[in-house]
């Protein structure tokens, strides 16, 4: 698809020093272009505000990628925000017939905790759907939600993660996610 073609799904990231009104500024620009803000996550990370979002336009009147970039440009002109706009192909959420789990890791901060733990999970086909890390003084905390493929030997995953955790000198807990529907 050429760059100037009309688009129907865009991935947008915005990050910058936190201040009141960042979401309002970005959302107003998108609304002004007729773009619907669908799935998004927006949070503050050590004083930086980070937004990651997927937008869709009306099928018959979607702005082009360039239109969206041009509309957001004034927000980033003073250098306080960085924004990216990319075209993405609409995806339906993949089937996840296996088990849903929550992983907690905590311990003394050191290089490579996220890399080692997530590699250990990836070896079993574990798919992380949500992950948060926090550094609090010397304490590093990672909490992840993940899916394991049907038929996975969860004890083996646990053994593997425990070995990774021992090598890193951190604590690890893997437990089934609560899926109560009320």
């Amino acid at each position, binding site marked *: 698809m050429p760059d100037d073609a009309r688009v129907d799904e865009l991935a947008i990231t915005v990050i910058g020093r936190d201040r009141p009104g960042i979401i309002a500024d970005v959302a107003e620009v998108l609304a002004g272009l007729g773009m619907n803000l669908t799935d998004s996550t927006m949070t503050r990370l050590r004083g930086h505000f980070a937004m990651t979002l997927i937008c869709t336009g009306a099928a018959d009147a979607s702005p082009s990628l360039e239109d969206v970039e041009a509309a957001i440009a004034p927000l980033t002109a003073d250098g306080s925000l960085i924004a990216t706009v990319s075209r993405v192909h609409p995806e339906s959420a993949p089937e996840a017939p296996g088990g849903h789990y*929550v992983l*907690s890791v*905590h311990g003394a901060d050191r290089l490579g905790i996220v890399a080692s733990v997530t590699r250990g999970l990836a070896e079993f086909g574990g798919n992380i759907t*949500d992950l948060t890390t926090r550094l609090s003084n010397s304490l590093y905390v990672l*909490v992840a939600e993940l899916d394991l493929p049907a038929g996975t030997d969860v004890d083996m995953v646990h053994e593997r993660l425990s070995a990774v955790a021992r090598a890193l000198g*951190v*604590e690890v807990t893997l437990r089934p996610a*609560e899926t109560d529907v009320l």
Partner: protein
Amino acid sequence: MTGIVDWSIEDLGVAGVVRPVVRAPDPVLAAPGEPVDPNDPEILRLAADLVATMRVSPGCVGLAAPQIGVSAQVFAVDVTGHPKARTVHGTFVLCNARLVEASQWQKGREGCMSVPDLTGDVKRAGRVVVAGALPGKSETQFTTDGFEARALQHEIDHCTGLLFLDRVAGAHAIHTRKVYL
């Protein structure tokens, strides 16, 4: 069997000393505590120290031995006056405590003196039967609910080397207590 309502801090017969509170990632917080002899004079002193340290710590409703650097299955609890408390047994210390029954699970937000800058949403039983030994006395078993039940589960976890971080409900269930602005 001595009832928990009959026990008081005076039964320890020793004055407690305020001890420094250990913070994660100190390894003592991740180690399962040793079972103790509830009549050992050293354990009575430990119990008194836990109560003394809990009482000088603002907002503290429970403190376990690993939190003052001692890997042992002893903790103090006192939820008196807490707005979320229903059943309240006042100040007490339990040794070798374990959950006998747990029901009425509900999610609630918890903090911990050993993880001072974070809180987490944790599912806990809203009604529990807990067994353990009162220091200087014999085995006891009692039922409680609400916030006291939550505090007991949090402290029993400390005694097995677990923090609330090991039980948070998901990736969006940990929260920063401080505002970084």
